[in-house]
């Protein structure tokens, strides 16, 4: 087993599945010779040819649309959107077609596609390069939304996404692309697509996060441990469908929950989790359910981005407040 960064794990998963399944193909801007702006597709065009690693014209709506057409005819397109700030033109095809082709045709045509995109802030990128739109996709019936938080999870979840018979939006935290390496098996084993990971066990409070925010969350857990607070940390990973049972079980145990995400607070996916807890675990709660999210502001240009991304301090502060029961 080699130590891989998250972006290398993505690359390996793509290569693995392309080698196994010749219906898999990659489409996107600059994914060929350039290997993608983050190098996620590095070397794949040389290996699998220009017909299966396709540099597209600059048209995200069109990319999503041709992916739907390909998938309907039995290919398994993996489309890369260069940054989530440019993913919005895909929404029309994702909600009006990808997510409902199976339903509209009573299963006659299906849409086994993956829409991949680097996601989130924190790398001093230019304007519109730091967005976290997972809640938009999570609201669309018929989709799956997956967000890995480590190289191993990226590998296993991306394999699962490519093998899933339905459309999957796969968001890759840019902040983690090269932040750390981890042993990643080259065994072609996928991870389940609708199960949260309990990344750390604890008894005092449940912290729920995903993607890059797992960093601050786990760091906060460490800091809190030094204060004698023993938190459980859940990596949601598969936002949609949500494995709420794992979260509820944890909250029933701890009685406290803090949800952390990098997207703006209002109508962010944290609301969904809090709402489920308020409905199904209310009487287990010893304290209000807190959300530590980005403010309801436009992601600022990079000078302020660290003030935008929920910090370890904000997370720890929220946990302390729920420990006090308020």
């Amino acid at each position, binding site marked *: 087993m080699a130590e891989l960064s998250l972006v290398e794990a993505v690359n390996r998963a793509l290569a693995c599945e392309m080698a196994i399944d010749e219906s898999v193909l990659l489409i996107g801007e600059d994914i060929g010779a350039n290997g993608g702006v983050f190098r996620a597709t590095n070397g794949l065009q040389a290996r699998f040819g220009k017909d299966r690693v396709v540099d597209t014209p600059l048209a995200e709506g069109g990319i999503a649309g*041709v992916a739907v057409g390909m998938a309907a*005819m039995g290919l398994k397109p993996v489309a890369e959107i260069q940054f989530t700030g440019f993913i919005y033109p895909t929404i029309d095809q994702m909600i009006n077609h990808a997510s409902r082709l199976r339903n509209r045709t009573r299963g006659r045509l299906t849409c086994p596609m993956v829409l991949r995109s680097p996601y989130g802030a924190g790398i001093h990128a230019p304007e519109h390069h730091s967005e976290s739109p997972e809640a938009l996709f999570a609201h669309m019936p018929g989709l799956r939304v997956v967000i890995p938080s480590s190289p191993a999870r990226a590998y296993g979840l991306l394999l699962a996404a490519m093998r899933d018979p339905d459309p999957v939006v796969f968001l890759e935290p840019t902040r983690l692309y090269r932040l750390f390496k981890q042993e990643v098996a080259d065994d072609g084993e996928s991870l389940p697509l609708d199960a949260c990971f309990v990344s750390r066990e604890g008894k005092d409070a449940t912290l729920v996060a995903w993607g890059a925010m797992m960093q601050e969350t786990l760091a906060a857990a460490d800091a809190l441990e030094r204060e004698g607070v023993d938190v459980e940390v859940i990596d949601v990973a598969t936002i949609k469908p949500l494995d709420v049972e794992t979260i509820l079980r944890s909250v029933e145990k701890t009685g406290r929950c803090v949800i952390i995400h990098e997207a703006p607070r209002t109508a962010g996916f944290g609301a969904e989790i809090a709402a489920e807890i308020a409905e199904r675990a209310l009487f287990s709660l010893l304290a209000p359910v807190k959300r530590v999210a980005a403010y309801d502001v436009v992601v600022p240009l990079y000078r302020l981005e660290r003030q935008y991304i929920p910090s370890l301090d904000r997370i720890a502060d929220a946990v302390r407040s729920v420990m006090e029961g308020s």
Partner: protein
Amino acid sequence: MGIHTSVEPDIATIRFLTPEGVLCRPMPPSVSDELLLSLYRSMTRTRTFDGKAIALQRTGQLGTFASALGQEAVGVGAAAAMAARDVLAPSYRDHGAQFVRGMSMAECLLYWGGDERGSDFAHSRLDFPNCVPVATQIAHAVGAAYAFKLRREDRVVVTFIGDGGTANGGFYEALNMAGVWKTPVVFVINNNGWAISTPRALECAATTLAQKGVAVGVEGLQVDGNDVAAVYDTVRQAVDKARGGQGPTVIEALTYRLGDHTTADDATRYRDPDQVRREWSREPIARLRAYLIGKGVWSADSEAALQQQCLEEVNQAVSAYQATQPASSDAMFDYLYATLPPAYVPQREIARRFAPSAGGGHG
């Protein structure tokens, strides 16, 4: 700046039959009398269906419906030029083409009657379902064609779009990709002069819509869309070209929407009735009938028999439609994913619990 200006391309309209049904050019070899008779029958079927569907809607037995009245030659001619193995990516007004492809009239009624099973075609099962979000189907067509090219399958995709739809970026992006990738796809622009109430002149300042191809390096042609022979022969050549690996073609078919946009529309609010009257003298069915009668291969008797036959077919379809039991609430869940994820299983239960006691058939 005159000499540097991009010129308006000189695009001629392909036509064999004048509005009076007189040959203005020799019929192409591909178009036999037998074929014309079959096209004539298909167009008549479509028109009979449209009349009935509108009547059903008016009497509360069908939802909103988009008739193809006056445009039958476009759908029928183009679909007839396809091989069975080819794939159709229609808009919402292309049942003329879909019937030729084998979609049943009962399926069509089910769809407009508010039931997803109408899109589970028993024939041409690779054909895309109706597409309502204008222009989104064009990318599907290009993607499908890409799949066939990649897998070296001998299939061509034919897709339809309205004149209004050609103003949409989705049309342009996909057309452009087809140009770059030389995918086996034929784009048929159903130019019926109107996008609901918006006249052609307010949709686009170009002289023709065929010249949209110039922007993306795709061959563009214009045909008289009320001359089914012209539509058939032109699409046939474009399909052959695509099949031969020579890339896409965009074909503008000039026709006219003789009816309202849909049953929810009232075209008298925005359209000069004189224009409609004039256009009735150019419509495709009477034109072809005049030609066939002139050639001695059609008669009042054969016409009466055909009318009768179409009516019977339509009525049978209506009966089948009306006899279809409504789907249960499970139908909302069971085709959402290959397997309903556990997270949503309880919702299916709730829906069952609150389902009203089963109602009657459709309509």
